[in-house]
């Protein structure tokens, strides 16, 4: 069952070097409860596409057909994505306040979210700058999950974190998906993260989708030369491929 359908989306930006086709005729479908990866290097248009799907940006042409109104987002830089002047309690309850949820219900849900992301109750009165990057990202995850969304766009949610913390956050996201059946659009430039999280993916470059398909299949049988070069720039191969290193 398709939950998000993109039909021939186009978006141009007017930059210093002229017109940039950030999203150039992109069509794709995301199925309910799957984790769909959007992979590509910087400037390929994946973040722009994510913002169009979220409704934050309007496309020049084409449609986004959504099977749900309950969408949320988790951004890369938790420093930027949490209002520095709001305390954690306010940050978490914002979505519910906008929806008009009652005070008691809000309190219950905020505490449940804190529990889910494994942060202590004392965190509620603190401000974002008092937390580490990994903890802030957990708050962002908590905020996203609080409003019972059906679809979450994760835009490079772990890119700026240390590798040990990355694993914690990714495991948390996986657990959430299992529990609540949420659909993910997972945007990343990091192939390892996509492999860990997603079952299907699309490879983007210069605003276009080069290939789509199941992650396992594409990783072992890339058809596009660009995909092949992306896969071969994966450094950890050296740890695995060197026969003498049995990891």
């Amino acid at each position, binding site marked *: 069952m398709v939950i998000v359908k993109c039909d021939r989306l186009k978006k141009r930006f007017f930059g210093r070097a002229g017109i940039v086709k950030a999203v150039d005729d992109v069509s794709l479908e995301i199925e309910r409860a799957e984790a769909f990866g959007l992979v590509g290097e910087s400037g390929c248009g994946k973040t722009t596409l994510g913002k169009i799907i979220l*409704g*934050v940006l309007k496309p020049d042409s084409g449609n986004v057909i959504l099977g749900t109104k309950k*969408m949320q*987002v988790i*951004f890369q830089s938790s420093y930027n994505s*949490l*209002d*520095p002047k*709001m305390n954690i309690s306010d940050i978490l309850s914002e*979505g519910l306040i906008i929806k008009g949820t009652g005070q008691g219900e809000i309190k219950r849900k905020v505490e449940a979210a804190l529990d889910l992301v494994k942060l202590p109750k004392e965190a509620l009165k603190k401000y974002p700058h008092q937390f580490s990057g990994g903890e802030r990202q957990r708050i962002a995850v908590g905020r996203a999950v609080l409003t019972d969304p059906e679809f979450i766009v994760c835009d490079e949610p772990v890119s700026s974190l240390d590798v040990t913390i990355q694993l914690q956050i990714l495991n948390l996201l996986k657990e959430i998906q299992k529990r609540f059946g949420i659909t993910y659009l997972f945007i990343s430039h990091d192939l390892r993260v996509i492999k860990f999280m997603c079952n299907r993916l699309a490879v983007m470059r210069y605003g276009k989708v080069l290939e789509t398909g199941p992650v396992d299949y594409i990783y072992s049988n890339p058809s596009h030369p660009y995909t092949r070069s992306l896969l071969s720039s994966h450094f950890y191969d050296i740890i695995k491929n060197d026969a003498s290193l049995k990891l």
Partner: protein
Amino acid sequence: MAVAASLFILLILIAAILAPVAATCDPSATDSRSVLTPPSKEHILGTDRLGRDIFSRTVYGARISLFIGFIAIGMAVLIGIFIGAMAGYYGGSIDTILMRFVDTMLCFPTIFLILAVISLLGPSIFNIMIVIGATNWMGIARLVRAQVLTLKERDFVAASKVMGAKDSWIILRHLIPNAIGPVLVSATLGIGGAILVESALSFLGIGVQPPTPSWGNILMDGRSTLGVAWWLTVFPGLFILFTVLSYNILGEALRDIAEPRLKR
């Protein structure tokens, strides 16, 4: 230094609020026996040509001067934030129109504008506040607009939008609280300026009208008797000096806190 300045400001504020308690005498009580007496035990800062106690008049004058300063700048801040936020958030033609309006207002030489308005509408505390406020909001509007322009691109604004927040929510809840830093600095410095303007107007006779005391009109009284009764000029003058200086120091200190620079 900033601590000293803040303490001074606090002192003046308390004195002004508690004027009836702080003043030693009734500021309008005339005493023909002690006309133009120098500072003494009875009258700490001396008396004026109507025998009124200068200290008490200064304390009550603080009330007026500070009141005008705060309200005028308060107005300027509200107008400035509103216009700056609208221009910065919506951009496009709204931005252009509002900013050209700001430019126009900046072209007017404020002193002359104030003089013109006062002479047309008559000098009253209310008119003075309005006119000082109406000529001081432009800098704040520009500051707020600049802040809002960068802030609206931050991810937390996008996250709010995704959660369904309306424009008014984003502006009031996210943009303005984050933009307020430089505004606070500007406002603090502005209070000093407003007090100066009010004192100047009162000194010229078109500000606060006697018998209501204001530091400016006490100075005006002292003009003719400068050689004989120096205390009529020196003391109010010193109060104006130190108060404005304190607000300036405080404002600079706030700026240093907001934009910390490495000392070494």
